[in-house]
């Protein structure tokens, strides 16, 4: 089995789907000859031609709107946001047009909008964002956030095959930093809506997703070595639809739960997860549901500032110790 990076796994998944299904095509800024800002679509225009790898103007609303029109007619567009920060320029198209299409008009809209998200790369306020909370509130969209190379591939393939619009947020910090041996299997699919236990434990649970899975696993190692704690890490993988069963299962197993996300705190995904736990599993809790998140600021550029704002492994360890003490 070849060892592939997260980015290569994503690229392989896209390429396999384009080979498998001629309805699949890519559109976005600089995705053609240049192969995308991060080279996710490198080599695609040579293999699939300009008709299926469409370079667009700098127009996120038009990219998403055009993808929607094509999807109505039975195509399977994959729209790239060069950085996911720019998805806000297509917010109207996604929330008002795409998300409502099936409900209001019976229109199928099977498209994928994908792009690099996340910080820890000194990208500053507009090349580092985590956009999920802005879309979590919109019925009609699905949201996936792979943390592993296997899921980078499995979720892009599942997203393309899904009959609903899917937002696919790939973490740019992980692109070339993690590697995994993956089988060359056309049907390596990660089911949408299904979380994964990334590490088993009995003493407390960390619910997380995207790059924070790795920081949570690091923290779990430290907590095992230094405190003898068995920490369970649940990688949500999909935010919409949320895997309520997996969340309830880990809460009922460890009775102590914290949520880690890279996005800012107020109105973040952790609040929603906390409310669900409160409604479904209140009597199973032996402590408060605690959060580790970014501070409520735009994301600053200077390393000293960025590291201070974003969640770090040490933060997770600190909060886990407080929770374990209940």
């Amino acid at each position, binding site marked *: 089995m070849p060892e592939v990076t997260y980015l290569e796994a994503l690229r392989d998944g896209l390429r396999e789907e384009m080979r498998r299904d001629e309805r699949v*095509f890519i559109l976005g800024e600089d995705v053609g000859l240049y192969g995308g800002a991060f080279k996710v679509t490198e080599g695609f225009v040579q293999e699939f031609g300009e*008709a*299926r790898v*469409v370079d*667009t*103007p700098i*127009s*996120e*609303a*038009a*990219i*998403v*709107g*055009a*993808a*929607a*029109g*094509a*999807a*109505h*007619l039975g*195509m399977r*567009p994959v729209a790239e946001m060069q950085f996911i920060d720019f998805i806000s320029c297509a917010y*109207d*198209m996604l929330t*008002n*047009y795409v998300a*409502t299409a*099936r*409900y*209001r*008009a*019976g*229109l*199928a809209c*099977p498209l994928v909008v994908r792009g690099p998200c996340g910080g820890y790369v000194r990208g500053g306020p507009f090349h580092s964002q985590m956009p999920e909370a802005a879309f979590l509130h919109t*019925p*009609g969209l*699905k949201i996936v956030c792979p943390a592993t190379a296997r899921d980078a591939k499995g979720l892009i393939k599942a997203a393309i095959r*899904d*009959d*609903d619009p899917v937002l696919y947020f790939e973490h740019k910090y992980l692109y070339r930093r993690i590697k995994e041996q993956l089988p060359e299997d056309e049907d390596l699919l990660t089911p949408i809506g299904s979380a994964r236990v990334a590490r088993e434990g009995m003493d407390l649970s960390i619910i997380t997703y995207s790059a924070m899975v790795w920081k949570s696993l690091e923290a779990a190692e430290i907590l095992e070595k230094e405190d003898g704690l068995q920490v369970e890490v649940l990688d949500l993988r999909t935010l919409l*639809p949320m895997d309520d069963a997996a969340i309830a299962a880990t809460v009922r197993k460890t009775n102590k739960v914290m949520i880690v996300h890279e996005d800012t705190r107020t109105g973040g995904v952790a609040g929603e997860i906390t409310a669900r736990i409160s409604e479904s599993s209140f009597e199973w809790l032996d402590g408060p549901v605690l959060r580790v998140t970014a501070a409520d600021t735009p994301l600053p550029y200077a390393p000293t500032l960025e590291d201070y704002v974003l969640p770090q492994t040490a933060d997770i360890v600190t909060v886990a110790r407080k929770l374990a003490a209940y």
Partner: protein
Amino acid sequence: MTARPAPARRDAASGIPAGLGREQLLELYYFMRLTRSLEERLTNLYRQGKVIGGLFRSLGQEADSVGSAYALDRSAGDFLSPLIRNLGSLLVMGARPVDVLRQYMAKATSPTRGRELNVHFGDLDRGFLGQISHLGDMVPVMAGITLTFRMRGQARVGLVYVGDGAMSTGAFHEGMNLAAARRLPLVVIAENNGWAYSTRMDRQTAVRHLADKAKAYGVPGERADGNDVLAVYEVTRRAVERARKGEGVTLIELLTYRRKGHSEHDNQSYVPREELARWERDDPLDRYAARLEEHGWVPADERAAADARVTAELDAAVAESEGEPLPEPATALEAVFAHPAVQPAAWYREAPRA
């Protein structure tokens, strides 16, 4: 305000402009009459409280919707997306009046099952896509529709309506620019009816003519009298042919006038009465009927027969739809997604029926 285009080219044999035949002239008349009469029926239903939401009239604009949509080739699979005052274009594409009535009355039988209002509905088989309220958004979507025609090697053409207001949105600009840059087979109809709600065109844009904006996109811009259905047909037909030949986007400004308020509740207090009166004298349906009469293209008895057909069809459509039920409440939870097919009900609400 009025600008008359060059006289329509006349077919040497029949004397009928734009290569049309008598049957087509009668059909254009029928669709304009159907549009106006359907809206009059809706006004009655609105006053009776049977229209649930607002009512949007296209009085005085029927020629631009009907004439432009008529220039598409439905047998070739041409496709359009309307705005709120383009009911006539939907009827030309084969939308059924009974479905329009059901939409306005929020019936369970409506094309959107009571989820959306008025002319916000589509039919991919008949070749039209319902708009959303966010003006300009349909331009990028129609760019995607026509991009798909291109990818599939189909000689199909798309047409999208915007107005003097919609052209101020970012979505319009992005969609127009993408379609122009890619030379997509798209015709963009800019319906200049003078008003965006209560805002006059000179407060909407600094250009004198909406067609002037075509230059910025590197596409041809044309202007025509939107109250002359044959002129509308002819200018649109040219653009459709250009698009089909692979020559890309055309922006067409049609000059007309919104003779009712933004919606039925709006009393148009901001509209000068003499301006309204002037445009009433330029009524597109009256003008067209007079022209048909003057040239002997469609005699009065045939027009009267078309009127009677419209009346009978609308009588039947109102009778069919008026008593139909509203949707079952729990259907509100269906079809947000393909999978799962039903959204969960709150635990304190009765579960939806199986």
